[in-house]
Structure formats: C-alpha cells, structure tokens
C-alpha cells in the first residue's frame, strides 16, 4: 500500500461541465502521474508532475489540465467534459526503485 487515495471514486457528469479529480499521497513522493484506461487502448499517460508546480504533458493531454500546489496532492481538471473523456482515471506515484504504484481509480462517466 503506497498510501494513494483518489476522489471521487465514481462520478457522473454532463457534457460541458468542469470536473476535478483529486489524487492524494501520504509518503512525500516527488513524481506523480495521471493515466486513463480505456478498452482497446490500455493505460495512457495524461500528465505528470516531478515536483510542486512542475508538470509536463503526456500522450493524451488535450482537454486536461493539472495542478500541484502541495507535494501530497495532484489535481486533474477537465475544463469542459466531453463524452470521449468517459474513462477510468488512475493516479500513480514513483517509488524508490522507479516502480510506479497506483491508486484505486476514478470511474468517470460523461453523459
């Protein structure tokens, strides 16, 4: 257990509304990641952070923004949700020997 929690765990929202997902870690890890998991595509990186206020884009960053104002929290925001953003979102941290540990996931449905 790497001390990673995600909230909310489930969310249904309407097209065009903003949505923020939260990832919280308790072990002061520097690197944090947001992935989405979709059938046929596997896990794809959205954004990642390598320190407070230090973030970078991943493979599928369009339509998403992130913020990290504290080491323990990494927020993922969908400014205006679309149906193509219906997915399961996973947060991860990098452990001491480069492995990544994942949170339990957030299932987001955009109607």
């Amino acid at each position, binding site marked *: 257990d790497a001390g990673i929690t995600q909230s909310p765990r489930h969310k249904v929202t309407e097209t065009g509304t903003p949505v923020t997902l939260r990832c919280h870690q308790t072990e002061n890890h520097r690197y944090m*990641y947001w*992935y989405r998991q979709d059938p*046929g*595509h*596997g*896990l*794809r*990186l959205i954004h*990642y952070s*390598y320190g407070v206020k230090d973030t970078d884009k*991943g*493979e599928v960053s369009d339509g998403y923004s992130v913020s990290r104002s504290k080491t323990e929290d990494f927020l993922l925001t969908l400014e205006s949700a679309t149906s193509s953003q219906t997915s399961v979102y*996973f947060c991860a941290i990098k*452990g001491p*020997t*480069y*492995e*990544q*540990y*994942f*949170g*339990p*996931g957030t299932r987001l449905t955009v109607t």
Partner: protein
Amino acid sequence: SQELEQSPQSLIVQEGKNLTINCTSSKTLYGLYWYKQKYGEGLIFLMMLQKGGEEKSHEKITAKLDEKKQQSSLHITASQPSHAGIYLCGADASGNTPLVFGKGTRLSVIA
C-alpha cells in the same frame, strides 16, 4: 516513442496448467515492470526487471528479461483461480521517465 506489445491478448487456461505471457518492446528498455489488475480495481505491482538476463520469482509467478532487454516473459506455474485478471507490462526508457504500458493480457482460469 516506446511501444510495448503484449501477447496473447487473452488466455483461458484450466486450473493447474502453466502459462506464459510475453511483452516485447520496440526499443531497449531501462526497466520492465509487471502488474496485475483485478477486474474493476487498481493495478498491483508484481515485479521489476532491469538487468539483461534477469529473472525474478514471487510465489508461482516468474518473470524474465532477455539479454537484449527488449523482451520479457511472465510465467505462471500451476495456475489457480486467484491468478485470474489482467496482466500488464510497463517500461521506461530511463529511470526518470513515466512508464509506458502494453494493452494487457486478460487471463481466465477455469476449474
């Protein structure tokens, strides 16, 4: 960019049988990571391989990395229903880059 190909995509085996899952990279790996995901849940870290020719075991699961560090195999001996789930391989090009994942292998174990 690095791509990982997993085979087979799905596998149904009888309880007690052995099985192998493969993961092939388009580029030389820095590290190769195996994860297991139960349906509807998060990813559980299994093992990490970094050295060419390296082999690691955990209970009845053995993972190997070839000498060229471009292919890995995951072998399960005497499969049990508890082994059912999705197995994913992840890899990084260096210790500081996010993991890229294969699309996963769905394993079912039948009595």
